[in-house]
């Protein structure tokens, strides 16, 4: 069990990505790091922004973890949203591509490129569901 959004959680997510044939095929030509900014929601036990980072290259995840804002901002794509939005994505309640177009997930970087890889994005979301996850606002105080 890994708590979202911690470094162990992102490492577990990276492991799941590398075990996915579907992702390897769908993202075979994808090149570029993605930083995920999980914005603070103190009332949900998320006191500070967290920068998750995945180095994705040709269908594989070369590394994953939590990084500092400066390293995260250097990623080719940065996707920001409040913690609750990310939780909705992980629970399958918010389609990430639709969320980007609706502004619920805010993208820095070339949005059309991400949208073209919708199959890979969907597989990434499915894979989050394979990571045994606990959420900070659901853990007893």
């Amino acid at each position, binding site marked *: 069990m890994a708590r979202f959004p911690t470094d162990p959680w992102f490492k577990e997510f990276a492991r799941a990505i590398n075990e996915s044939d579907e992702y390897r095929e769908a993202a075979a030509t994808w090149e570029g790091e993605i930083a995920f900014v999980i914005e603070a929601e103190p009332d949900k036990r998320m006191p500070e922004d967290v920068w998750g980072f995945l180095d994705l290259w040709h269908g594989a995840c070369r590394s994953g973890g939590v990084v500092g804002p400066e390293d995260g901002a250097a990623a080719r794509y940065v996707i920001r949203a409040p913690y609750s939005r990310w939780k909705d994505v992980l629970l399958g309640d918010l389609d990430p591509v639709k969320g980007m177009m609706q502004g619920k997930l805010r993208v*820095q970087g070339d949005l059309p490129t991400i949208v073209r890889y919708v199959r890979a994005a969907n597989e990434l979301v499915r894979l989050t569901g394979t990571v045994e996850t606990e959420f900070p606002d659901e853990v007893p105080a």
Partner: protein
Amino acid sequence: MRAVVVDEGRVRLADVPEPVIEDPGDAVVRITRASICGSDLHYLHGKTPVDPGGVMGHEAVGVVELVGESVRKVAPGDRVVLAFDIACGACWFCRRGESALCEDVRMLGGGPFLGSLPGTQAERARVPVADVNLLRIPAAVDDEHALFVGDALTTGYYAATTAALAPGDTIAVVGAGPVGYFCAQAARAMGAAVFAIDPDPARRAIAERSGVATVDPSGRHPEMALAEATEGRGADVAVDAVGSPSAFETAVGLVRRGGLVVIVGLYAAETTELQLGVFWARAITLRFTGLCPVHAWWERAMSEVEAGRIDPLPVISHRLSLEDAPRGYELFDRREAMKVVLAP
């Protein structure tokens, strides 16, 4: 006469020449109350050029003492509020009620970019085109209630009006400073559900006492607060009442698909990155207000004050003499004051 002047990044009290009638349309007003506005800090810090030794200020009320021979609408003895932006009243824009876009727009205390007119933090001020730029104050409205009608109050009222709110609409106001407060008050009077977002507890407290819901962004994500209040949609209207890229981005994040973002906060050289496709897909309308055309709106704003639907007094944090103006600027600059009123 005594006046607050600016020199090399600091303000001081000085003796300056008494204003006189220079044009048949002029009036000379004895100032009874003047205030320090956020944009005065731009002059103080050199973000906007100043005339060395120029008189500061553009928010004031007073009593007419002298009028030029062509002035018809005001007379000596009238209590008046002064427009912060001085319009000609005759050009194409002024005739359309867009007086802030006047071909000859000037500003009291506005420095060389805006006509080099002496400002209002003084015992007296000359007001050009007095028939256009002075508004008589109703007998039932005292000076402090009328003071902000020439600028911040009407600017906030204008922002709310620009939002074209229907009863039951939800509006999020980013920034609960004076303009945000007045916008929130006006929106509430229009029947909207109002949320003011500000990290400053004192400003939130003032908004809350006037019946506005508030969000402390350091304790709760504003986007989620508005989503929860609107069945996940977001606000119908979001107002940037700050004038910073982060406030703009916050406002954009708060508004629902098909919603309106009103940008009333003052911008100069700031830049930000926009995902045009997202704005297009979300069908968001951006409306930059520019300076408020107070002349077209101040009678309506004054009516709101007279009817008690907008109460300006809660924003006054300090009442000082003209001699204490430098201290007032210090307090204001340190954000320890919401609004400083000076009594010449």
